[in-house]
């Protein structure tokens, strides 16, 4: 691990100031991703600004929905009564990831900023455009079973590893940030970026901006929402493909739908084309298959991951079927 200096921030302004003025400084939350990457030499910050004492842990009901503090632990969010009742997909998604020990430490803000688990990014002996811009992508000619099938570029085919963010994408979540220039809000779907020519820039958060909260707006579909994760083993594995789905179904017809995919792209992938197919259509197998086709229409698999295209279609159909059945039962 690289030597670094450590500072504990006293409040939000102090934290932001410290990182803005510091040389190659990073915020330290739960440390479940950053510290691992530092040990592996992938991340080499010169300064860590510990934000764990900031008052950003609250989960509270607002008139518009639910506000989750950036330092709330993944466990606290997943097990929170209001989250489970109003946004079940978020609880399911978080519980589908990592282990209880990690979820107890990991924060919401940190989860948004998780870095990819691409083998080549994680191993400093390989070239990687994300780690060393311009050095080349080792995954494209390498083993790319876990890599992107949507939205990749010729510079990077890594996928975003978060489960939580897939659920947030389906829930129209909004990320609230603080920075030297003041506060702003970034819709979750615009928070993460596709790799393009600059895979090293993963989010639209500026380096000196601090995530302070995530807002979940009330919606007619959030309560009927589920998460399905397909992975290499039952626990403690990243998604090969995951799906977050939320439906508002009335008399067998879909009034509103949200569909997002994980494990398939450089960002949590909101399937807008599929949502168009679903909205206004009958909640039946034919519709769900059409939605799955639409969601994967632009898919471009790599050498070793063609199976993920079909796997994603099947996962979508299965989850939509389950959510629709629940909705019928629940609405009766």
């Amino acid at each position, binding site marked *: 691990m690289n030597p670094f200096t450590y500072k504990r921030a006293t409040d939000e302004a102090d934290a932001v100031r410290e990182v803005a003025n510091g040389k190659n400084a990073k915020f330290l939350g739960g440390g479940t991703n950053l510290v691992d990457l530092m040990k592996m030499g992938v991340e080499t910050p010169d300064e860590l600004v510990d934000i764990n004492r900031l008052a950003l842990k609250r989960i509270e009901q607002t008139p518009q929905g639910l506000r989750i503090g950036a330092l709330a632990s993944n466990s606290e969010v997943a097990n929170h009564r209001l989250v489970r009742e109003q946004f079940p997909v978020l609880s399911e998604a978080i519980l589908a990831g990592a282990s209880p020990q990690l979820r107890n430490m990991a924060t919401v803000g940190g989860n948004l900023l998780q870095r990819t688990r691409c*083998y080549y990014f994680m191993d400093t002996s390989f070239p990687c455009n994300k780690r060393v811009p311009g050095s080349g992508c080792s995954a494209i000619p*390498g083993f790319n079973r876990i890599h992107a099938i949507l939205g990749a570029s010729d510079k990077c085919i890594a996928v975003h590893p978060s489960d939580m963010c897939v659920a947030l994408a389906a829930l129209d979540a909004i990320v609230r940030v603080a920075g030297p220039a003041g506060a702003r809000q970034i819709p979750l779907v615009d928070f993460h970026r596709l790799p393009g020519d600059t895979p090293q820039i993963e989010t639209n958060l500026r380096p000196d901006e601090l995530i302070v909260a995530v807002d979940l707006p009330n919606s007619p579909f959030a309560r009927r929402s589920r998460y399905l994760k397909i992975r290499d083993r039952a626990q403690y594995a990243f998604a090969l493909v995951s799906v977050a789905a939320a439906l508002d179904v009335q008399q067998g017809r879909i009034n509103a739908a949200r569909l997002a995919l994980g494990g398939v792209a450089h960002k949590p992938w909101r399937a807008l084309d599929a949502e168009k197919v679903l909205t206004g259509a009958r909640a039946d197998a034919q519709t769900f298959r059409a939605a799955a086709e639409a969601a994967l229409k632009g898919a471009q698999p790599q050498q070793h991951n063609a*199976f993920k295209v079909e796997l994603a279609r099947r996962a979508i159909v299965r989850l939509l079927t389950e959510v629709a059945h629940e909705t019928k039962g629940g609405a009766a």
Partner: protein
Amino acid sequence: MSNQTDTQTKIVGKPVPRKEGRAKVTGAARYIDDLRMDGMLYGATVRSAVPRGRIREIKFGAGLPWDEFVVVTAADIPGENCVALILLDQPYLVAKFINHAEEPILLLAHADKHLLEKARRAVTFDVEPLSPIFTLEESLAKKEIIWGEDNIFKSYQVNKGNVDEVWAQADFIIEGEYRTGAQEQLYIEPNGVIAVANADAGVTVWGSMQCPYYVHKALLKLFALPEEKIRVIQTETGGGFGGKEEYPSMIAGHAALLSWKAGGRPVKIIYDRAEDMVATTKRHPSRTRHRTAVNKDGKLLGMEIEFVIDGGAYATLSSVVLSRGTIHAAGPYNCPNVRINAHAVATNVPPHGAFRGFGAPQSIFALERHLDKVAQVVGLSPAEFRRRNFIHEGETTATGQVIREPVDMEGLLARAFELTDYQAKRERFARANEGRSLKRGIGFASFMHGAGFTGSGEVYLQSIVGAEAGADGRVRLLAASTEIGQGTNTIFAQIAADALQIDFDLIEVAQPDTSNVPNSGPTVASRTTMIVGKLVESAALGLKQTLQNSGLLKANYTTDDWRAACRRHVEQFGLLKSFSQYKPPPGINWDEGKYQGDAYGAYAWAVYVAEVTVDMLTYEARVEDFVALQEVGKVVHPVLAAGQIEGGVAQAIGFTLYENVVWSEGRMLNNQMTNYIIPTSADIPPIRVYFEEQPYAYGPAGAKGIGELPMDGGAPAILNAIEHATGVAFNHVPLLPEALMQALNQTA
């Protein structure tokens, strides 16, 4: 408190507390990375990035204080630059020719770990590349000759009867090809050692290992020192599974070479998980081809088997892994004509090595998959076909070994089926699966596993165990057999306590230290309980006999009498000691040249049944239930024995459905625990373990070895169940969802 009754209480067979359990659960146990010495340096290994080539130049990058580092290359080796094991082909450090990726070329030591890591990355090699080969096909085809004259480390041919004559008489001839992949041992504690070495004091190594005397032998040659100048001490060891059989000789040599160059300052080398996974040994990948002749009554007439394993770049243990795989290739069946051709071949990947089962899981996987196919062709159920061919007392194995003990494979099969409701489920699942997306299946494998070294191996080892008793009556057992989490110390103490009829707490087991314990052989090959345990028993009995011969101990005695006798003996004659050396059981004969005869003193026999579900939508296969039934002679410790079986089955489930070593240019690509997928407890079904006991005359209290057995049956039982569920035959492991998808889509 002692009284007459405790001399009658048997401890063998009881779940007594583990000898080292308290130290482990309280954190008092010291593993190698817990140890620090004054003036200690940290060592690192600089490895090859390419699979094959010739080193032109070693370059040290700018900006590092190179004069502060201890630097060792092949030129610094005081003795011979080879890891002495079976052959002497593997260097400690590459002098010129690189034969696999991650091969050690240069060693560095420094007091600052972080600077050391920077330095490791700053050393580069200018290499003239040579063409590598990566698969056993390329090796067999001699695409390049990379080892010896023909890339072949070892070949065996086993002949029984005359297989050439059976094809004409056969009603059915069934062929098949079966493959298994590499598998990482993934012991809990990675490899690590500390060494102190200089010309005056000699070489002392502490470390995590299975076989202190293997390390001792290797260091003798590396330093060209006399035996008494080399000392190897095993520290508390967090698992091995075979992975710490041969590799500790390498890392111990490296640390000792650095210490030697540093004038005797202690040097610690601990691999992190990524280095341990990428650079050290794995299970040998294999390819097995079967050609089987059967008559219309479903009797085996002949079996021709070709068994090939990929040994990697150096010979290491491949010849003996091949041997065990070969001998187990024809299974517990009575077949009059058998020919097995077996080869271990070289490729430019890091050497494959010992891993629980040692070749047998590979060849048993092939056989037990193949016999389901044979049964289908003949028109019998898998169970009925096997029933017609099981071996019995008085019949012979493939090597012509006459089975001299009662064997009841039919009985095991019947009991395993009863425990799993196999017959009913076999029919019910087949009916219910129609049109369902979640398909269920049930399958089994029947097999045997020989305990101890193969053939004349035990005679060659001449293992010795010592026992000594002090004035307080405490007995110390002296053996090089290591406690690596499997329970050696507890089991030895149980056996000795029963032999001496004294309290279990009076027995202790000495730390394996080559300056203090005799060579009881390596801790491998399911031999520790059966072979070394028997020596523990006779060494302990030697103590008793001495006391009784000298009249200090009556025929019937209590623990208090024992203490008193020991005290008097020590007062009169000094410390009481007894040694016992291995002698083969009578009537054991092995012909190494013809590969004929009694391959093992005893076999454990088993039937394993797996129940699976296959999700036809997502192609996830899951083991839902697992019954492991085995005849093991005598269960010495029920909790430890069941633990061995459960752990082995879990490893076998990993081998079958999860663990996929991904290779690129001869290097493991997924050398991280996030991308090398092993099953977690959430993926493992309840493993229901049952034992039967048919005491073995030459095992302690009748016990036979079981350490490797549970690795053998899982893969074929699970794939047999998947075939039952899906109707599709899969003949390779690991079987990942994408392979299921591809095959099932084609048949759909």
